[in-house]
């Protein structure tokens, strides 16, 4: 009987490869989500002059870009999915909580990068479609400078990463305690309502939102996202470390 002495990083790498293979579905869902968003954007751009559809106006108010918003929502949801899959699949084979979490975060980073790039490129595709099918649209904003494209992808990827880690965090919390599947949404929606009623007072959610969104320096923004993700992630590692494997 010869023992195999495992190295933490080597195991993480193997697990990352395994996760990438078993979670390929998330990239398929990304395609669907972006295609859907693209179609909705097409429709939205076309009907904007009429201004008849209230849903379109709503979405534009939030972000101005349906594809990116959809990609971010996707990022949050896959964070949740990856957390669920990690608990379901990882412990079949060589794994500890630490390797499982590290491999998960690598997977989320990969997914966020792909999501960020494709979301920005979908924006280009949208412009092209508009250019082809609606001859009115021929001003300068059709053109995207390469640097803008790059920074757009980068920022979207960072937001997607942050949201996917947040999704992973909530996913793991709910794995730990099923009651949280109800408690967390209630708390979130509840605080949304409360903050909306108390305009002008200290508002936690708004403050957090502003903390990221109002940042103009790329470097500072990157640091904020990485630190926030690291904090969430460290919390996950801490509270899953003594968690038993359910199977």
């Amino acid at each position, binding site marked *: 009987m010869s023992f195999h002495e495992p190295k933490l990083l080597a195991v993480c790498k193997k697990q990352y490869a395994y996760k990438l293979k078993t979670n390929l579905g998330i990239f398929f869902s990304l395609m669907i989500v972006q295609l859907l968003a693209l179609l909705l954007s097409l429709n939205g751009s076309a009907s904007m002059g009429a201004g008849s559809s209230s849903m379109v106006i709503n979405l534009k108010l939030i972000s101005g870009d349906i594809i990116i918003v959809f990609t971010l929502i996707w990022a949050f949801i896959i964070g949740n999915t990856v957390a669920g899959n990690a608990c*379901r699949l990882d412990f079949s084979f060589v794994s500890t909580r630490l390797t499982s979490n590290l491999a998960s975060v690598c997977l989320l980073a990969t997914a966020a990068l792909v999501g960020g790039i494709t979301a920005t490129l979908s924006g280009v595709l949208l412009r092209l479609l508009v250019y082809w099918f609606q001859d009115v649209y021929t001003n300068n904003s059709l053109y995207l400078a390469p640097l803008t494209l790059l920074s757009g992808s980068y920022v979207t990827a960072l937001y997607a990463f942050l949201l996917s880690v947040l999704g992973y965090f909530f996913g793991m919390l709910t794995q730990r305690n099923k009651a949280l599947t109800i408690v967390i949404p209630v708390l979130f929606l509840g605080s949304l309502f409360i903050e909306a009623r108390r305009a002008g007072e200290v508002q936690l959610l708004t403050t957090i939102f502003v903390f990221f969104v109002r940042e103009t320096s790329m470097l500072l923004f990157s640091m904020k996202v990485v630190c926030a993700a690291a904090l969430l992630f460290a919390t996950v590692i801490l509270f899953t470390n003594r968690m038993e*494997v359910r*199977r």
Partner: protein
Amino acid sequence: MICIESESLAKSFGKFKAVNNLSFSIEENKITGLVGRNGAGKTTLLKLLAGYLLPSSGEVRVFGQTPFNNLHVAANLIFIDDQLELPDNLNLGETLAAIGQFYANWRAELARGLLDYFSLQPQQYYANLSKGMKSSLKMIIGIAARCPLTIFDEPTVGMDVAVRKDFYRALLKDFMQYPRTIIFSSHLLSEIEELLDDLLLIKAGEKYLHLPLDELKGYAVGFTGQASIINKMITPEQILYQRQLGKDSIYLVARNTFNQEILQQARLQGVEISPVATDDLSIYLTAQHKGGIDNVFSRT
């Protein structure tokens, strides 16, 4: 060398004690059968060994280390059971290749050969397999991984007799080539007894017996004959099982502490003496009530 050591190990779920005060040790490179009734705590014990569960009290050590959330133990152990989750978006060939990456001793050719023998196509998908075929695939993974500690928790669920027998043989053959510690829990003791070196029998979460299989075979004897004669030679503590056959004849299984003379005497008085099959014996040993199911009906 000792592979597994357990010291007054206990695990409770709420108020229910699934494993209670269990102390034993398993030597390396032996095949140990884990036997017990439904709910005796077999799966809980195996999950404690695999490091999936935290003991409520007591201690368990695998390769000299605490198994819970331990990378060294995880890398040298594989736990095969009914609930083992396999990816549903990979075909069988890809699944085996992906799993093989995790294990240093993985035998890819053996896995492929077994897959072929049990007529599983590498292009098939796990979700589309029948119950028995799913079990076969998991068993193939368990054998091909060649982990220093291999745990099978009722791996033969859904397999037909022919497949089960092939698997016992495959396991034994691979064990001879590459000895390792194997724990095999099963309800079909008579089928697996040729495989086993040792038997660990647990009852209501506690260790009842842990002995080499050869000793188990001589552990008890069966008596068939007149109740009055048999009851005279056996003390009530020895009785493991008793069943009424006719008006005053009984079948009785007792712990074997008899010398040849007593047995000879019994034979002369018309008592038939027979060996007890190991799986029957394990049923008698783990029974909650001495009369068996018949007792329920005779009371009503």
